[in-house]
């Protein structure tokens, strides 16, 4: 496009509004460059720099949010990035998850004697990718965000050099992820072919203004299909979920937590941007596909989760089931996509992502505590007797598990209620009932972990789990947040409602 212009105008760059991205990238650069040039930093400093970076980025997102409430939505950098509460909410989600993961990672690495800046830098880079995915207003930029996130995650998954399963996870994720990215990119190309643009605002415009010729429509439909495959892989929806259990189980636990929170948040943000925001004119074409993905993920994720014996693998399958729940919200958003009153679908998805991210990081943090005590064993047996050894940690784990099961007075209930309510509001009763029944099946899995934790006694010789300070802080604040939102969700729902006014 640029080449066709007679003169090139550099886009104005709103530096302050780009604050979160700049903060995350600077943090990563500081860690990489300064970390490489200086001797090993004193204990925990890498993690604290990471956590601080994430906190600053999240704080800047809150400032941005206020600007948006005052001045309305807009686009940045010549229409490449959307500046709306949608983007800020994803940014806050990603930053919160990154902060918590950094705290957990600190103990994990230092105890293994592998402390170093690389992993943290990769976390921040991946977080940048997720934030870009959430704010992209151009499919190419969205793809860049996706690749930034994915490439960092491939390396992170393989970052435990001593465990072959970690290497295996990395390779598996890389090969399959590469495929998915190719699908996604080809989808973008076809959409470009059909609409003459990769910019989301212009894509919408092309549907509004142009007369649809037959061939163009086919291109767009094929593009949508490929995009759904690519996105389905990234969000780990059935039938594109095959990589999830192996990668989740094989990757270091802190990385798994990161994948399940930041990875999912970014991917779902991209899905909303692409399907709901960019392609509302084809909502009746892509919505049935999302419906099928949601139902399959719910049913297969829940059922397969129940028969696992390894807690990490269980949580991997449960994350598939959660993806199904979020897809229920996406499906609900699809009913009125692009209209003035788009319904509760989008707010419910974004709320779910935030709440689930905190929950899942908390759960995996406890898993990492237990695993460390047992030489990396994450089977159900390792959790036996945890309540006797560490009642507080067991209680926190119980809070996370109950929340994942959707028991009232926890954030998980609010999240589930939100998506189901959005679906029921659009009269998608069937999917709502399937989702709730799947939640009951999944509840059995959480009960199994709780039975091991509370009702069974571990071997006498098992030592008490060491609970290092920063992991303790992460677990405690995640649990407190889970309960707080469960009792007092009003402010978050209020905030989430504004995401339906998005920039394009």
């Amino acid at each position, binding site marked *: 496009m640029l080449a066709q212009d007679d003169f090139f105008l550099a886009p104005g760059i709103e530096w302050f509004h780009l604050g979160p991205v700049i903060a995350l990238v600077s943090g990563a650069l500081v860690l990489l460059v300064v970390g490489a040039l200086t001797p090993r930093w004193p204990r925990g400093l890498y993690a604290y720099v990471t956590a601080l970076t994430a906190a600053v980025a999240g704080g800047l997102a809150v400032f941005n949010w206020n600007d948006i409430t005052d001045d309305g939505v807009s686009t940045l950098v010549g229409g490449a990035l959307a500046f709306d509460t949608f983007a800020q909410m994803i940014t806050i989600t990603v930053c919160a998850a990154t902060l918590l993961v950094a705290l957990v990672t600190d103990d994990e690495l230092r105890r293994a004697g592998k402390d170093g800046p690389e992993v943290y830098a990769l976390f921040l880079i991946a977080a940048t990718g997720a934030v870009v995915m959430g704010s992209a207003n151009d499919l190419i930029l969205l793809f860049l965000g996706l690749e930034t996130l994915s490439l960092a995650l491939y390396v992170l998954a393989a970052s435990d050099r001593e465990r072959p399963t970690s290497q295996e996870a990395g390779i598996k994720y890389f090969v399959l992820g590469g495929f998915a990215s190719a699908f996604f990119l080809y989808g973008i190309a076809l959409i470009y072919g059909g609409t003459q643009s990769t910019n989301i605002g212009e894509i919408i415009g092309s549907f509004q203004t142009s007369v649809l010729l037959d061939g163009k429509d086919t291109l767009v439909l094929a593009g949508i299909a490929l995009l759904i495959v690519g996105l389905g892989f990234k969000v780990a929806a059935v039938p594109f979920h095959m990589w999830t259990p192996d990668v989740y189980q094989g990757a270091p636990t802190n990385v798994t937590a990161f994948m399940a929170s930041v990875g999912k948040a970014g991917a779902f943000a991209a899905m909303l941007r692409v399907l709901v925001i960019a392609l509302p004119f084809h909502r009746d074409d892509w919505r049935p596909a999302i419906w099928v993905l949601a139902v399959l993920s719910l049913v297969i994720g829940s059922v397969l989760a129940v028969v696992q014996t390894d807690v990490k693998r269980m949580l991997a399958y449960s994350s598939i089931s959660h993806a199904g729940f979020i897809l229920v919200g996406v499906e609900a958003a699809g009913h009125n996509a692009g209209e003035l009153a788009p319904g509760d679908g989008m707010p419910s998805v974004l709320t779910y992502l935030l709440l689930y991210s905190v929950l899942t990081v908390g759960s995996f943090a406890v898993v990492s505590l237990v695993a460390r005590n047992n030489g990396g064993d994450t089977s159900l047996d390792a959790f036996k007797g945890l309540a006797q050894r560490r009642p507080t940690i067991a209680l926190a784990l119980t809070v996370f598990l109950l929340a994942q099961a959707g028991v009232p007075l926890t954030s998980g209930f609010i999240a589930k209620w939100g998506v189901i309510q959005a679906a029921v509001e659009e009269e998608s009763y069937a999917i709502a009932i399937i989702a709730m029944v799947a939640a*009951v099946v999944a509840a059995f899995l959480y*009960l199994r972990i709780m039975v091991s934790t509370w009702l069974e006694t571990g071997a006498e010789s098992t030592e008490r789990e060491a609970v290092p300070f920063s992991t303790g802080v992460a677990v405690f604040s995640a649990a407190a947040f889970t309960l707080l939102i469960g009792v007092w969700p009003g402010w978050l729902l209020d905030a989430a409602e504004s995401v339906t006014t998005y920039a394009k």
Partner: protein
Amino acid sequence: MNGEALDFPILSMLVFMPVAGAVIITLLSKRRPEYMKLVAAVSSVATGAMSIWLTAEFNGHESGFQFVSKHSWIEQWGISWHLGVDGISLFLILLTGVLFPLAILGIDPHNDDPAKNKPYLAWLLLLEAGVMGSFMSLDLFLFFVFFEIVLVPMYFLIGGWGYEGRVQAATKFFLYTMIGSAFMLVSIMATVFIASRNGVGHVTFDLVEIAEHAEFAASTGRWLFFGFAVAFAVKVPIFPLHTWLPDAHTQAPTAGSVVLAGVMLKLGTYGLLRFGLYLFPEASLWSRHLWLSLAVIGIIYGAIAATMQKDLKRLVAYSSVAHLGFIVLGIFAVTSQSITGAVMQMVNHGVSTGALFLLVGMIYERRHTRQIADLKGIQSVAPIFAAAFMIVMLSSIGVPGLNGFVGEYLILIGSFMSARWYVVVASTGVILAALYLLWAYQRVFHGEPDEANKTFAELKLKEAAVLLPFIAVIVFAGVYPKPILERIEPAVDALITHVEDKTGYESPQPAAVATISEEGE
């Protein structure tokens, strides 16, 4: 007297008092078990006292909700903290308030480690708060929250302090109830959205507002009702969804069984009244023959199954299935007497079955068995114990002069007018109840005690103190039920009027039968 005149938010306090107790217990040091017991006692007794006070202050002539407390909770979704009491819920709240202190103070969890008491007491108190909240909620969301949250403490009570098959029983209990709730959750939301478009005008979860203003098309209302009904049918439990109950009751610790039978099953029957008949009158009437049939099947099936049990606790559990069948029969007969009787019978069943579980628990403590075949001739070594068992058992059978008779009689006579042939079959259930309970009594208490039963200890003072309130209620409500019935009746009549207004159904009026309140005198 009325809610407006009362500054003290007593209903909210009934929920928060046990929660406060549970929180304090959690914070107490593990090494001071005596303080834990003290805190549990104080908070549960205070809750009980408040529930008694509530009953005293309750205006028996008013049919609407009293002591209403309403605060906006989640404004975005139209959800409020909305509590209220009427004649239907009043005695269930009283029952909850009184039963819990007895269960907490009177029954020790059978474990040797006093440190384990801490979560036990905390869970019991949280359970009390949840049950209280369920009975008082006038907001669909709030009700669902309470209805669902009671699963968690009960799960841990059964799983942590139950008998040999406890983990499996607890899991079964949790999943069964949750699958019912899954349907109810979707139904609640659909009800709210459909109601907002048909008569209510805005999105609100307020029960009263929806029940009064919403106009559901017949087919819609039936689907919505079905979602609610599944959840309640599991909770009651109505045949054939009852299979979780014998396991949960048998494996639960004594206090758990007492609470489970005493108040938690009533969540189901109460729900059928409040969220079935009140919210969906048309659908309830439309499907009543289904419910009546299932109720009668439950009565007969529960009785036959109880007769065949070898385990005393399991026998009592199956007797619950039969008794709850009577309550469901009374509800769906939809006459003033039958529903008044059903409400009364909810309380009666709580008292008598609660006491039966208590007594079976005492037997287990002494003999470490619940098998009927292992017990023999206890009457001759422990006559007072046997007498207490006898009174409670007779109340459960429904012998005139004791509370069980009043409720069962009202249900049968009330239902006779509208569901004659169901009553004919159900009445045989009364006889079967006498059969299985008396037969069990005969096997356990009569005859010459063998070696193992010779040392069966007599009723201790503490045990007697726990049993005494039960027996007092059994006798009082049997001899003089008027103060109870006259508080229940206005609310029931209002409910029937509501059903009649909404559907054009005419509840059969008893021409020859004297009204109940006169009968009591």
